[in-house]
């Protein structure tokens, strides 16, 4: 961050290339919209660069800070939208699997996405941060502005709901 504050171009590019894919992945999962996720990711890294002169934390804190900012930007967008847009995410084609297998995989992916989107907002965010973004409990709690105990409660409730939903779906299919 010191190098970024000094205006070193390579430092800026490195920060963007290392942070942006991760932040984009978070925004895609929260927003369900790849284009909106691009905007959020770009805005997040631009804010990080602007913050560089005042930055006092280390790399781990930067990751938490980026997640906090991105999450808040996502929430702002969702409030404006008043609904969660269902999948506008381009599906990645895996050339190593057959078309039928790819279709099944895509459908299962959509089912899981739908299940997570059906969760209450805070439970959804907690699960996305911990399971998908692999933030530690401390970092995820900080990004959400809650205690670790509160985070663990959100995670447990969210996971319980998901287990029940998938079990019901399985029974329904069977």
């Amino acid at each position, binding site marked *: 961050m010191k190098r*970024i504050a000094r205006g070193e171009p390579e430092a800026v590019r490195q920060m*963007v290339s290392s942070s*942006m894919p991760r932040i984009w992945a978070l925004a895609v999962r929260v927003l369900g919209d790849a284009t909106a996720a691009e905007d959020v990711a770009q805005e997040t890294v631009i804010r990080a660069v602007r913050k560089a002169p005042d930055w006092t934390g280390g790399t781990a804190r930067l990751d938490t800070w980026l997640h906090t900012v991105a999450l808040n930007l996502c929430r702002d967008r969702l409030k404006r939208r008043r609904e969660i847009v269902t999948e506008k995410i381009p599906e990645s084609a895996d050339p190593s699997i057959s078309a039928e297998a790819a279709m099944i995989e895509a459908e299962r992916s959509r089912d899981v996405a739908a299940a997570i989107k059906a969760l209450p907002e805070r439970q959804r965010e907690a699960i996305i941060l911990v*399971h998908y973004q692999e933030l530690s409990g401390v970092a995820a709690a900080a990004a959400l502005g809650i205690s670790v105990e509160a985070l663990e409660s959100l995670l447990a409730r969210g996971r319980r709901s998901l287990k029940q939903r*998938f079990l019901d779906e399985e029974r329904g299919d069977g």
Partner: protein
Amino acid sequence: MADGMDIEHFRRLAESYGAIIERWPEALRPAARIAAQSLEGQEIIEKERALDETLDLWSVPVLSADLARTTGDKTLASHQKILRRMRLWWTGIGVAAALSGALTGTAATALMWQAPQPYTSTVFGDLDDGDN
């Protein structure tokens, strides 16, 4: 009770963080690993692993390298613009300070300036004051 960790505590952690103990709070991992070796611990882990694997089915594409590069260039351009403005601002402060100093100096010089002495003036008085 499993060594180092009450099984109910182990269960609560597994239900929150899932089957991968490396994602659990760091300080609790050693005790958790011991608890995970018990029969009950293994059952708990297996149940959460099934959910973890289902959650992993939700995949998102990888961000394109082009977009990351474009964002890097945009961010850099924006950052350099801000740095240039900051330099101009500091330069402006410097100019303002210099001007302020110059004005102060001019005023001081004006105070010290005196009307040019007439040709006949001496330190002993004017030569043509009529006393001689």
